[in-house]
């Protein structure tokens, strides 16, 4: 099983690496992402969003819903870290010996 996982990961890694030479050059004006919505954002951002900063206009206004869940994910990640790292016994599963004791009580 572990060997199979290693083979799958190697294949995925090789696929990803083989794609790298075909990526568009950085700053290429004719690459696919630069021809799709980017010109529209650059032209209309100040007029649509009222923000002179295109980055703010895109992440808060055009992509506002995405940023909302991004914030939620970060909050939940922080909350989960607190729950894992805090050694608060409330709400925890019982320790091993407690499980054994509970088992004897049931018997």
């Amino acid at each position, binding site marked *: 099983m572990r060997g199979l996982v290693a083979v799958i990961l190697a294949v995925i890694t090789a696929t990803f690496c083989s794609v790298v030479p075909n990526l568009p050059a950085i700053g290429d004006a004719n690459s696919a992402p630069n021809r799709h919505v980017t010109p529209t954002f650059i032209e209309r951002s100040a007029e*649509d*969003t*009222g*923000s*002179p*900063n295109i*980055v*703010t206009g895109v*992440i*808060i*206004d055009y992509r*506002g*819903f995405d*940023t*909302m869940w991004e*914030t*939620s994910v*970060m*909050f939940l*990640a*922080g*909350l989960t*870290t*607190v729950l894992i*790292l*805090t*050694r*608060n016994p409330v709400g925890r599963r019982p320790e091993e010996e407690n499980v054994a004791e509970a088992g004897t009580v049931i018997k």
Partner: protein
Amino acid sequence: MIKLKDPFGGIILNVAFRALVPFTIVYGIYVLCLGEFSPGGGFQAGALLSVGVLLARLILGSDAKFNIAGQTSIVMAGLGTFLYAFTGWLTLFGGADYFLDYNYMPVHLEPAHEMHALAIFMIEIGVAICVMMTIINLLDSIVKMGDDDGRTE
């Protein structure tokens, strides 16, 4: 183990960072307010503000003025996230068809850019609070692993 209840460091930390704290916090607020016009915004401002609060706690321990710790910071992080979603709901109350459509903020401002600016500012405040409190949370929970009972105060 470090507990951050007591100040530590000594005279160098005390003298050098004591001058740094107010400027860090003011710069964080500056980045937050100018995020609409210049590079910056909620995420960066939150990181700066959390550094200010944490430095103050490093210097003064639990006597620091802005000592936000434990459950307060968890609640505030949730409130920051809520402020973002609440802005979306405000636009819905104003009659928008879509969530976060800033043309329908319930206050009327001319031109329509101003309503966008107001909504963007509210959202960035929410994001900044969430990021700030989450970073404080992370440091708190890591540091509290060293406590004996492990409870938040």
